């Protein structure tokens, strides 16, 4: 009796766990299938066999089988340990199609065969990280179902009451850090449409009295003092390449890159090769050029080209032991997982300074925050959600 009680408790805990892990109501589905089996054939002696043809884990399959057996017994079936003559055979297959689980039961007794099916909604899952040498760490700030183009920390830190601004193709989203988590407290539509583009990019950065948001052909200014307010106008103004705004560049609104015209801190203009992103260093900058190379432009030195296949997103990151780290994404297609690695920059090469920090989907945006010691990455996860990560470097292994 005690064993039976313990088994029931284990079964219940497993079912609750499996259900929580998958967000599914497997017990009800099992009950529903048992009911269909009972209506397809008169209950009697039967041998139950459950096979898994889906990606369900073994513990989950065990709990589903237990639930199903229990429901069949409650419906009048007497389940035997082995098949026998005069015993019905109930062959259950836990299958799936591309959008849901499909559980089938084939009930056979003598020459009679009946089939029952139920379908169960199916969700999705995610993954982790590691580091070395300089240790690049990531922390997840927010997750959004909407496409995110960029994000910034208004106060530059994660403390109670701090604000995070996220830019989508249609709106600016205001988050506030409250009781240990970011809460979306306000959304402000852009009201004006930006130019259409297949590789949508944008930039949002704090300003002296609020923030600026840039989209292709559009410049918005806003404040958060008394709620989120926003004014947008058509514009081809230069975009800040990092939140500290030391270097600005003009974006090609009908393409997906900066056209190569940059504006320095004293308003000086320079014309370089078109590029996707830049790492603004303590002196000079490195650019992810559209030909896949990285070009390093430092005062007093001729421009250096670091050839190779680099990702399109780069950003600078300062740490106490290694200044001017360059964060670089991988060069994979968007169908592959992405990663960010910190590199040391010499005049002619980039040397890895950290292990790659992996992401399940492509990094859409990577930029340095205003203090130079934090970077922000927007990642499009395979589940379709967008995730904003804060990246920092610490010294030591």
């Amino acid at each position: 009796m005690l064993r039976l009680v313990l088994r029931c408790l284990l079964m219940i805990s497993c079912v609750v766990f499996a259900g929580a892990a998958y967000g599914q109501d497997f017990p009800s589905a099992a009950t529903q299938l048992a009911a269909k089996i009972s209506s397809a054939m008169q209950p009697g002696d039967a041998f139950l066999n459950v096979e898994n043809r889906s990606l369900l884990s073994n513990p989950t399959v065990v709990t589903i089988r237990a639930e199903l057996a229990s429901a069949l017994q409650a419906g009048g079936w007497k389940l035997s340990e082995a098949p026998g003559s005069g015993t019905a055979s109930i062959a259950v297959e836990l299958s799936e199609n591309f959008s849901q689980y499909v559980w089938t039961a084939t009930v056979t007794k003598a020459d009679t065969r009946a089939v029952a099916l139920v379908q169960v909604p199916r969700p999705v899952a995610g993954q982790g990280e590691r580091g070395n040498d300089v240790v690049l760490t990531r922390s997840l700030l927010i997750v959004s179902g909407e496409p995110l183009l960029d994000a910034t920390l208004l106060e530059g830190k994660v403390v109670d009451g701090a604000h995070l601004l996220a830019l989508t193709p249609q709106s600016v989203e205001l988050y506030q850090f409250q009781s240990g988590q970011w809460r979306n407290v306000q959304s402000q539509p852009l009201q004006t449409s930006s130019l259409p583009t297949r590789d949508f990019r944008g930039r949002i950065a704090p300003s002296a009295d609020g923030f600026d948001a840039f989209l292709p052909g559009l410049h918005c200014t806003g404040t958060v003092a008394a709620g989120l307010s926003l004014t947008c106008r058509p514009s081809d103004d230069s975009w800040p390449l990092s939140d500290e705004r030391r270097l600005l560049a003009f974006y090609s609104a009908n393409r997906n890159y900066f056209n190569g015209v940059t504006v320095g801190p004293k308003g000086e203009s320079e014309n370089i090769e078109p590029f996707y992103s830049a790492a603004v260093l303590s002196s000079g900058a490195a650019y992810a050029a559209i030909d896949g190379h990285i070009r390093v432009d430092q005062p007093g030195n001729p421009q250096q080209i670091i050839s190779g296949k680099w990702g399109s997103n780069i950003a600078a990151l300062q740490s106490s032991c290694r200044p001017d780290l360059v964060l670089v994404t991988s060069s994979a297609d968007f169908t592959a997982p992405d990663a960010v690695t910190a590199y040391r920059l010499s005049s002619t090469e980039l040397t890895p300074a950290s292990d790659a920090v992996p992401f399940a989907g492509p990094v859409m945006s990577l930029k340095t925050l205003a203090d130079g010691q934090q970077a922000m990455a927007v990642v499009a996860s395979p589940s379709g959600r967008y995730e904003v990560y804060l990246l920092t470097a610490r010294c030591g292994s």
Partner: protein
Amino acid sequence: MKFICLLLAAALSLAAAPLRAATRPHYGGTLRMETRGAIASFGRSKVLDADDQALEDWVLSSVCDRLVIMADDGSVRPRLAISWRSDLDLRSWHFALRPNVMLQNGNPLSPAIIIASLAAANPTWHVRTEAGELLIQSDAPIPNLPAQLAEIRNSVCVSGDGGQWVGSGPFQIGEFQPGQRMELRAFDSWSGRPFLDRIRIEMGKSLAEQATDFQLGRAELIENSPTLAPPQRLSKISTSQPMELLAVVFAANTETAMRPRLRQAIALSLDRASIYSVLLRRQGEPSAALLPEWISGYAHLFSSAQDLARARQVRAQMGSVPTLTLGYDPGDTLAKSIAERVAVNAREVNVAIQPIPIANNPRAANPDARIVRVRIESPDPGAALASLASPLNASTLTSALSLNSADAIYRIENNALQDFLIIPIAHIPEAFMLGPMVHDWEIAPWGELNLGDLWMEPAP
């Protein structure tokens, strides 16, 4: 008003902007593509060869938009419709349309054009505008209507001066030589300009010709086949889920139509495992079901195992039977091999089958059966099963169109296979070979291509 919002699309305009690459895409370049299928004219015909059907679908999905599209996870995403809802009875569906969409001929895409396209493709629907929205009504509930609208047959197009399709998609049809060559040119659509400048499609090329051209650097995108070894040139291979049905379909007006047991004996004699491992080189899956497992989730309920003992038993219940003719497309080497294998298997149970090429062969105008290859066009089980009705001459399958219960769809499929007029053999995937310069290649599990987001690395 008592209606429910079943699905609300997330946002206006570009909310469904596609994911982008870790390596950002490059603009420009011409992709050279070769296909077995050919388009001779732009009228959508009812029944097409699977290869022609595939090409037509790829071109249509690049040139014309649909109200919605289906994502790989089965969710429906906005395109020309930005949001939608249904009344409680699922007979009336309301769609808010994307504003300011322009066609490739410079005219705005009006609701009247959408109504005409949808009404032509779906004669039982009543489509009109109401209170600024598009209203689709049906006499019967259509719970999966958004999934149906995501099918390529529901593309919204008008006819251009030369009869060509004109839509609002990322490419417009340029030079066209019927059955031989077609050029797709970039169009600055509402969803943004595609990365490629143009796509040149050489049509009607055999797989061997394609492989040679790929090897010689004359094409960057070709079809791959389970029956051919891959070329040596550095390449990427990409495949869809198994989405083409290979089956023996018996004619309803011949002597065999009156002999279900004869057809059952042939079905039981089939050695699908050998066909799968030898002829299909283990691509796809052997199957005795109309829908593949990844679409239905229940294909395993139809036993695909060879059962010679039972086949002989069934055959023994009949007297002598005449030699049956099994037609195949002479240009399709896979169909020919399979027809020959079916004949070999049938001979083991004392049924004589003669494979014969059917194109331009008067003697074979009406074979007892033929090898059929049908492209399944939707991942939605109900819509997918219904789409097989016409090519398989099985009208009962159309009743699956508006169903979303796996149980009900299974019963329709099971009933359609009871008389063995259709004997499924296997489901095979669509496969492509891409040159190393081609990036961000996307093929949906059901074979739909996203050529708008494809880009090519500039030549070094």
